């Protein structure tokens, strides 16, 4: 069970983290424009 939880926690952190970081970067660039 611990491996299942760790695997999905990792996936959420990487995919979610990347998505949020991208949106923040996009918002920053759009504001600067």
């Amino acid at each position, binding site marked *: 069970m611990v491996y299942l939880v760790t*695997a999905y926690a*990792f996936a959420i952190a*990487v995919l979610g983290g990347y998505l949020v970081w991208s949106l923040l970067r996009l918002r920053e660039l759009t504001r*600067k424009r």
Partner: protein
Amino acid sequence: MNSSRYELGALAAVGLMLVAAAFIFLFAPTDALQGPVQRIFYLHVSSAIAAYGCFAVVLLGGVVYLWKDNLAADRLARSAALVGVVFTTVTLVMGMLWAKPIWGTFWTWDARLTSTLVLWIIYAGYLMVRRLAEPGRQAARFAAVVGIFGFIDVPVVHFSVTWWRTQHPGPVVINDALPAQMLIAFLITMACTLFLAAVMIAIRYRIELLTEQAAERAMPAPIVAPTEVGGA
């Protein structure tokens, strides 16, 4: 297109991933042999397929760039490579966490695992070339070639389990080895993951475009010699 459209797309992708999570954890039955850890399968395989798709876009973008000298194609290839590396990372780590309780080890140098690691290294190298090389046509041409030849590893990864004897299991989806409920959960997870990958590429493409435009604006205007009026 303004940034709120992209945020809406991202929100839709998150919503779909939650639907996929419901299918993985509530709809799909627990595997009789492996127990709950088998549920790693759904996102592990879907991430691998999303990574294949991203690298196919890199291939296509590279070919179009070399053929038509199209900067948008190069930008698309660059965006897809980054998203592909993110999904390959998820595939590798989830696979390792699945392997530990089933095989007793996180890693073994079998053909599937090794070729997937090589795939990650190829496209991480592609991104490094883009980051370190002087931006311009030369870097874009070189990266396009790396992206095209790098794709050779994708069929190697995919068919490694049939070409060689591996510890990694062979294909279960196309061999009809999944019960109906597991297959439905897998197909829904795959569709949602592909949508997420497409949204990520679209956002990254926009970031690349805006970054290029900002760099162009920051460049000093070229000094032009005043033209002689009524010259000799």
